[in-house]
């Protein structure tokens, strides 16, 4: 399997069955993964912040840094490779509350909120999710099989099957 690394504020797509898209160290950042099993197209986005309005110039240079610029671009790029919205499986992962995060801002939570809103507005439901908590995560999407794998810090890798939820919040109990 050919590993294609997706960095922070980065996005990669592939239609090569041997490729696996991987991104590391998702703390408060959130990864959005999409896969069309018919077109054989997969995409993985790693965003850092929810909204680009605070830094429009930065968003022009680095659209994948922000959820509101990165998510639409991820989907449009997938459509250009032959993917269709109604066939897409969608996963989100990350959005942890990291130790050095200012609790008052809670960027991880805000990132997840922003992505949920964008997907709902775009008419896309999430099929697999693991967000919140306090652990850093690494995720991997196999383009050929459409399988999505996740590993928390210090844990073994496991598959996040579609239509299964592993959300650690929104309950703040």
């Amino acid at each position: 399997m050919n590993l294609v690394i997706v960095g922070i504020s980065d996005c990669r797509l592939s239609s090569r069955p041997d490729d696996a898209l991987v991104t590391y160290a998702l703390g408060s950042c959130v990864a959005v993964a999409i896969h069309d099993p018919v077109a054989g197209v997969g995409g993985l986005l790693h965003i850092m912040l929810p909204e680009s309005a605070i830094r429009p110039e930065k968003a022009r240079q680095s659209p994948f840094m922000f959820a509101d610029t990165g998510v639409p671009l991820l989907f449009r790029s997938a459509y250009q490779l032959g993917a269709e919205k109604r066939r897409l499986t969608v996963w989100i992962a990350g959005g942890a509350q990291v130790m050095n995060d200012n609790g008052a801002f809670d960027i991880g939570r805000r990132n997840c909120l922003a992505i949920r809103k964008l997907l709902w507005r775009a008419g896309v439901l999430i099929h697999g999710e693991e967000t919140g908590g306090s652990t850093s995560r690494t995720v991997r999407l196999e383009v050929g099989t459409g399988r999505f794998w996740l590993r928390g810090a210090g844990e073994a890798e496991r598959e996040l099957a579609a239509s299964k939820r592993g959300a650690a919040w929104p309950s703040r109990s």
Partner: protein
Amino acid sequence: MAFAILIVDDSPAMRSFIRRVMDLSGLEVSSCLEASNGEEALDVLRRHWVDAVLADINMPCMNGEQFVRRLGEDAVLKSVPVLVVSTDATDVRIRRMLELGVRGYLKKPFSPEVLREELERVLEGSDA
């Protein structure tokens, strides 16, 4: 197989939200009927067969609990699966509704994905 669903809620906004989730869910929904209270819902069910009912509790004229009781008294309608979708998350109400035989109890607020999962679960059960 395409499903017929009845949404019973006095809030037009909530009925819109639920309809949108069904449209996006990938489930084959042949018809999506609506009623704004239990009495209207019974009237719809006298004229149309449905595969599942999503019912709120707090509604005027006939609330969700009264509606489910009436379904249970009907030889044909008692087999229609009901998924409660309500803001009422008290232990007492949940117990009462489960004792009346509802197939699920979804507390508002809920994400679109949780609604889709519950709907799939209830419809899969009805298909068995």
